């Protein structure tokens, strides 16, 4: 193990803001993409179900 303390781990030998800046943005980008993808799919899926419902009423085109 090369880190003697948590503080040392986060300091990254003085390069902390570069290393963690990279990892934080990567994590954020991936989380945002996942969230958008999941939400988009859920909305579309719900809409697909709704189109069946309106169809049975005979009001949808």
């Amino acid at each position, binding site marked *: *193990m*090369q*880190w003697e303390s948590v503080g040392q*781990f986060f300091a*990254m*030998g*003085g*390069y902390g803001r*570069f*290393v963690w*800046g*990279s*990892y934080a*943005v*990567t994590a954020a*980008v*991936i989380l945002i*993409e*996942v969230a958008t*993808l*999941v939400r*988009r*799919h859920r909305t*579309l*899926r*719900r*809409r*697909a*179900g709704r*189109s*069946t419902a309106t*169809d049975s009423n005979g009001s949808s085109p």
Partner: protein
Amino acid sequence: MAVNWFKYASPQTFYPLAGRLVPLFWLLAIVLGAIGLYIGFFVAPTDFQQGESYRIIFIHVPAAWMSMVIYVVMAAWAGLGLVLNTRLSSMMATALAPTGALMTFLALWTGALWGKPTWGTWWAWDARMTSELILLFLYIGFMALQAAIDDPRRADKAGAILALVGVVNVPIIYFSVKWWNTLHQGASVSLTRAPSMANAMLLGMLIMALAFWAYSIGAALLRVRSVILERERHAGWVRELPPG
């Protein structure tokens, strides 16, 4: 074999299959990512030249690789869709583009953050970084063209032609940028030379690359599910989907 293959070429059969594959690939990405990061942060030694700042390569290099791989795969799907007129292949191309663009952005972002401590500048007009930037432009062009065309079939075909033209151009662009870069020695810094890598570093990087790979496949599959729902919303099978 061929029959088996084509069975999944219809959006209707592919939609549930993709739904089963997404969690699988993402689970794989999480497991591989955890292993890769553990190796990257706790096993790989400090680099004697760059200190701890080199630990950015565990995401920088995989993102850069994925940005290029995804473009080629995207062009291949788009070309397949154009030639065989299979809707699903074109949808895969559409679904891959945003993830590829994100990977390109990440490669540029992490490259800049690595460049600052290593060469003392956020941005160098070095052949690799410049090519990566141009690749981002190509992704943006592909997405902008598809977004500007309302008819999905036309968008597919136009996008395919652009992607194929782009794929022919990528090696030419890379070569020209490299050529340009070597001619302007004054502006270049010797940054492409990788430090002699310890095995643990290489292993961590490869595992992270696999994690990025698995993540990208999962993301593209989930996006293609949305694309299928959007395009086939008037088809009977979509209307009969159970809610969820």
